[in-house]
Structure formats: C-alpha cells, structure tokens
C-alpha cells in the first residue's frame, strides 16, 4: 500500500471555489461533482424509499387497502429502477468522484467536462422517468426487468422509460470511462497499480464491467423500442422473434450489474476494517485477484436468473456450477476481512459498525444466493419472496450499508467537522435492527410460497407481512436521522477534524495527507510516493 509524505502546502489559497449557481451548473471540480452525485442519490433514495413505503403499506394486511393493483405494479417497477439507477449507482459514482483523485494523488478526474455532462444527464433522465406517472396508462409497471411481451403492453410511458434508460446508460458509461482513464493515466508517480487503495481497485474493475454491460442493456431496450414503435420482431414470436432471447440479453447485462452495485462496497469495507482494527489489510493482492475473478465469473452466470424458462440439463448444470464458483473468491474476501480483525485493536465507530453489519448481513444474502443457484431448488423459490429477501439483503445491508459506512468514514474529510458519533451510532442500531425485521421474514414468506409483485395475498402470509411492514416503516424513519447527522456536519457542527481523521497508521490512502476539509484544489503538485 502507498505511503506518502504529507503534501507541503505552500501558503497560497487552495480554496478559490467559484460561487453562485454557476459553480454547480458548470462544475468541473471532482469534489463538487462528487457532492452533486451524492445529493442526487440521497434524493433518489428518499423518492424510491417513499415508493417502498407505499408497497409495505399495501402489504400490511391481506386484501386491497390503499392503491389499485396497476399502481402497485408501477410502485415495484419504479422503486427498483430508481433505487438501482438513481440511488446506488450515482452514490458510488459520487464516492468515486470525491475519493479516486484524492486516493491516487491526481489533481482531478482525467476528463472533467465529461464528468459534468455525465452528472447533469441524470436529473433529466429521472425527471422524464418520474413524469411518466402523469401519462395515460401511468408509469411503467411491467417490472424493472422490462420483459416482453408484458412491457410492450405499457401505455405512453414506454417511450419515456426507454429514453430515460438510454440516458442513464450513457451517463454511467461516461462516468466509467472517466474512472478508467483517471486511474490508468493520472496516478501520482510511484503509485503502482498494486499500491492503490482497494476502493480504487474495486472501482476500476466496476468501471470495466459498466463499459462492457451498459451497452448491452442499451441494445436490448433499443430492440424493445423498435419492436414497440417500428414493427420489428426481435422479441415478438408472431414475427419469428423470441421473448426468451430478451431475458438472455437482459441478464447478460443484469448479472454483472449486480456486481457493479456491490464491488465498490467491497472496496470501502476493505478500507474501513483495517483502519478500525489498527492492522494492515490481510491479503491485499488476493483481494484484488478475488475482485477480478468475481467480475470475470459475473459474465458466465446470467441464466441462473431464468432457470424456469426451460433450458437443457447441461445449461442448468453449467449455470448452477459457475454461480456456485463465485462463492470461492467471495469467501476469500470474507476470510481476509475476518483475518484482518483477528487480534486487532478494534474500536466501534459508526463506519466500522456499518462495515461489520455489512460483513454479517451481506454474507446472509450470499448464502441465500447459493440456495437460489441450485437449479432444482430454484424451481420452487423462483419469483417468490425468497428472491426478494435475497437481493434486498445483498443490496440494502450490503450496498447501502457500505455507502453509509463510506459516508461516515470520509464525511469529516469532506466537511472538516466530526459528526455526532453518538447519534450516528443510534442511526446504525436502528437501521440494523429494522432492516432485519423488514427483510428476514421475507425468507419465510418465500419458502411458504408467497409470490413477488402482488398487491394482495392469502391470509396465511398475513403475520410476517405485518412484521416486515413494521420493519420497513422503522427503517425508513431511521434514515431521516442520517440526513440530520450529515446536514449538521456540513453546516459546521461538531469538533474540527484533523487531516488524519481516524488517528491511526493503517488508513493509508493519500486522502489522509491533505487537510480536512479537503481544499478545493488538491495535488496540483504530485505527491511523493515512497
């Protein structure tokens, strides 16, 4: 890992940031763009979260209570699209924008103007997507997977949705190109690839995944568009097309997408655990190779999402075994994190608490993933709440907890003020308890046979649905605390943070060599890497 001498600041002002609205509209500074991405993601988390609350409210009791089934379907579809493309992905891009130049010792991202475009595309894309609620037929309701022929029956929202997805894809690809170009060309002298902090490594691999798979999604939705409006028959059996072909193409994108959402989380956890265990990370190089292996394997497992469409036994076996193989590099990571903590001098500040919760709860999601990988068992679990439980464990106490861990880890570096640690610890416990009350019962519901994406259900599922809904409301309310804690720190509350915020020797990234808050311009002179 890199060790750098503290960057000598020669007295001239590094904080001459532009002022007014122009600072944000025409932003090219990686810190400003990172902030905008993070604020955008937070807003999207609350919009997508509000939709989740509608879903949980409707499912609180059996029977139709508050919304009609069509609107319920729109809620599940839009909740997924907003959380994945508007929440988690922009949050990672925001953290990448803030931290990658600081960690590799670069003055900014390699392509700052493109960085600006890739951010500003997003608000337009999501405005279009949300406007579809007001069109005849309502918002898209065929599920975020957009399977034909169902999705082709959508109302006027179809065109808007496809256009919005294209824009999100272009934004993601531009962001990913920026990350690759920055890491490959802008590292400080002496910062060899195997000296980079793991957050940069996991993001580099994520960026390659994005560049390889987002165009596949774009291709799939372009073909849907031509099927819907221009009379082609890519996925229309009446014209010789095949709806199952869409599923193959979609999941060729969709499975690597799962790793796009989770690999940066691995990076953040690999930064936080050594810091709060006061030990260097165990097995740095094996972490890098494990990340690369997971990324490679993610391209050859896609059909495990669609065992039930009927495929040859050889196909089932291949996709079952290749999926199970992912447990090997993932196990390497969990082993390395655990070994890093072994005999460490551990302290439990909020970033470490969230990283530990990630370790336990993401592993639960991983195990239920292994259960789903078993083809004959998947015939039973497919399209039940067991699947919902699985991917929510991976994405909420997995990806979202890692985002919170990252924000709590670097927030003092961004704002120059330590946040309220006591309140953040409360936020952690409330979130962790409620997220389990919310998602754990879904395993039982799924195993008992409750299908996903339904607004009403048999009374046998009533009790656990009520429990899950109570957990959902508690989890949603707990997140208001997060906003309050962050706002307080941004507005200058709390004690001043030092440059090396967490006061230990194992937080080794170059970000800890610049003052807190990080000046507007950093590393104009490349740092010296020993």
């Amino acid at each position, binding site marked *: 890992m890199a060790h750098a001498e503290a960057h000598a600041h020669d007295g001239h002002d590094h904080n001459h940031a532009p002022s007014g609205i122009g600072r944000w509209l025409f932003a090219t500074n990686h810190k400003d763009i990172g902030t905008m991405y993070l604020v955008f993601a937070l807003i999207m988390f609350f919009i997508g979260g509000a939709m989740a609350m509608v879903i949980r409210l409707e499912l609180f009791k059996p029977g139709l209570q508050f919304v009609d089934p069509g609107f319920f379907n729109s809620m599940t579809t839009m909740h997924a699209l907003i959380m994945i493309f508007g929440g988690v992905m922009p949050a990672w891009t925001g953290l990448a924008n803030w931290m990658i130049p600081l960690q590799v010792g670069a003055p900014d991202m390699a392509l700052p103007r493109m960085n600006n475009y890739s951010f500003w595309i997003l608000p337009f894309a999501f405005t279009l997507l949300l406007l579809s609620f007001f069109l005849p037929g309502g918002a898209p309701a065929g599920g975020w997977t957009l399977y034909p022929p169902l999705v082709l029956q959508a109302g006027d929202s179809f065109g808007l949705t496809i256009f919005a997805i294209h824009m999100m894809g272009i934004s993601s690809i531009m962001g990913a*190109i920026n990350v690759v*170009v920055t890491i*490959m060309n802008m590292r400080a002298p002496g910062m060899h690839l195997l000296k980079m902090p793991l957050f940069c490594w996991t993001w580099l691999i994520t960026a390659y995944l994005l560049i*390889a798979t987002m165009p596949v999604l774009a*291709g799939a939705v372009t073909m849907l568009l031509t099927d819907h409006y221009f009379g082609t028959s*890519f996925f229309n059996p*009446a*014209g010789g097309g095949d709806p199952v*072909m869409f599923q193959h*193409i979609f999941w060729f994108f969709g499975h690597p997408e799962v790793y796009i959402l989770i690999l940066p989380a691995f990076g953040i956890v690999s930064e936080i655990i050594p810091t709060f265990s006061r030990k260097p990370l165990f097995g740095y190089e094996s972490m890098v190779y494990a990340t690369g292996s997971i990324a490679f394997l993610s391209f050859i497992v896609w059909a495990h999402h669609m065992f039930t469409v009927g495929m040859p036994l050889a196909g089932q076996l291949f996709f079952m075994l290749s999926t199970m193989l992912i447990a090997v590099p993932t196990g390497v990571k969990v082993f390395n994190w655990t070994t890093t903590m072994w005999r460490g001098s551990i302290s439990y500040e909020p970033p470490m608490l969230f990283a530990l919760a990630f370790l336990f709860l993401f592993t639960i999601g991983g195990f239920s993933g292994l259960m789903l990988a078993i083809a004959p068992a998947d015939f039973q679990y497919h399209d039940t709440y067991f699947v919902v439980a699985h991917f929510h464990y991976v994405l909420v106490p997995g990806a979202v907890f890692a985002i919170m861990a990252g924000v709590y880890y670097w927030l003092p570096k961004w704002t120059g003020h330590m946040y309220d640690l006591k309140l953040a610890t409360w936020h952690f416990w409330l979130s962790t308890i409620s997220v389990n009350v919310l998602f754990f019962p879904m395993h039982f519901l799924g195993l008992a046979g409750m299908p996903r994406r339904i607004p009403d259900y048999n009374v046998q599922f009533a009790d656990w649905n009520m429990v899950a809904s109570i957990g959902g409301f508690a989890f949603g309310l707990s997140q208001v605390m997060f906003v309050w804690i962050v706002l307080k720190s941004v507005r200058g509350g709390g004690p001043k943070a030092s440059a090396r915020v967490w006061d230990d020797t194992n937080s080794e990234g170059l970000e800890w060599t610049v003052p807190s808050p990080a000046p507007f311009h950093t590393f104009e002179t490349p740092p010296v890497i020993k």
Partner: protein
Amino acid sequence: MQDVERQHRIRRTVITLVVVAVGMYVGFILYTYTMVPHGPRP
C-alpha cells in the same frame, strides 16, 4: 513533453473504451437480428 504524452495516452484509452462500448451495443443488436428468422410474416 510528459504532459503531451499523457494527453495522447488519455486519448488512446478513451477511444479504445468508446469502441468497446459501441461494439457491444451494435454487436448485441446484430447478433439478435441474425437469430430472428427473416421473411414474410405468417
């Protein structure tokens, strides 16, 4: 001199990545197109 060389490296990396992205987009559409039987609709 070093800056000019870095600019060239950045340009080469960007062009390569854009070609990969466009290639995946066009490639998957063409692949699907070849999978669909052509001819008069039934």
